């Protein structure tokens, strides 16, 4: 039911001229993808520095909340570019992405990383006073930082795997589980 709705939406989008023209534009599509990938260096880059500080592995002499606070804006600028280019890329090949198991796992991991970040932010506000200047933050903080890095590693892996057609709907040898998880309804047209 939900899969059908998502597919209907994707099929509608796929029929729009702006979708096909982006898909067919070699330079625009590839530059969007390049921008999407390279903005990792800013968005995930800033996130990694913050998380490494929360693990006590970088800049131990600088208060943890200061690093988190000062790097928040560049990180958000990076993530905004990621979201804009990501959504834009989606509009080029909506049917394939909608039914991609990697795309779906990526979105779930993104959501989990977002929830973790919100909880972590609250935890930081409530308790940082007691350990802010500690070179090595308490265990709970370190666990949250490690979880954040792991979730984002998963996002990167899934993001990269989307490009591969191993489990594309309609491929021979897909298990029932893959077809279910990817929400396969329509077979993909040959590229």
């Amino acid at each position, binding site marked *: 039911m939900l899969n059908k709705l998502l597919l209907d939406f994707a099929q509608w989008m796929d029929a729009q001229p702006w979708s096909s023209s982006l898909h067919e534009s070699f330079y625009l599509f590839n530059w969007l993808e390049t921008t999407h990938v390279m903005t*990792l260096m*800013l968005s*995930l880059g800033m996130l990694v520095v913050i998380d490494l500080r929360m693990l006590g592995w970088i800049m131990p002499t600088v208060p943890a909340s200061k690093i988190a606070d000062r790097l928040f804006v560049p990180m958000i600028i990076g993530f905004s570019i990621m979201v804009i280019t990501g959504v834009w890329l989606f509009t080029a090949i909506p049917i394939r992405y909608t039914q991609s198991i990697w795309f779906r796992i990526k979105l779930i991991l993104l959501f989990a990383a977002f929830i973790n970040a919100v909880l972590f932010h609250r935890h930081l506000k409530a308790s940082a006073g007691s350990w802010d200047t500690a070179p090595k933050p308490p265990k709970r903080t370190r666990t949250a930082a490690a979880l954040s890095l792991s979730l984002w590693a998963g996002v990167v892996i899934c993001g990269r795997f989307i490009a591969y057609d191993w489990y594309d709907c309609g491929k021979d040898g897909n298990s029932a589980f893959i077809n279910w998880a990817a929400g396969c309804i329509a077979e993909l047209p040959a590229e």
Partner: protein
Amino acid sequence: MSVEPFFVWLEASPLGVFMKDLPATFATVEAVHLMALAVLGGTVFATDLRLMNVILRDVPSNTVSEQSYKWFKGALIVLLITGFMMLAGVATKCYGNPYYWTKMYALAAGIVFAMAIKQPLLKQDHATLKPATRYLVALASISIWFLVAASGRWIGFSG
């Protein structure tokens, strides 16, 4: 002397065969390469934007660059290892790919710049450096790593 035989040999080597053996091998190495790129980018942006007085203005610039450099080196090593592994899988394609060579020259320039120019300069007290020097060093650093990463991405688009 042409270096082409090396690329042919590399692709036929056990490493080249390993990289092609399973489709997921190459993709997984690519993903690790990207994660290391995020770490490298984070340390480059932290150091360079601090040098430009854009971020972390209330943290000593020397502290930011010293602390970042450790992780920069670690990320660079992972990038070089995973990059070489990917090259082994598609060596003969890369040999004829202009983006591959652009990336290699930019990478060589980036490593020389980071280790032989930027790092010795940043060992001094940053307060004694001219603002223009700090700004230009940071701008050069960001530009060169941008070129390395972007030309790297384009290797895949033109194969």
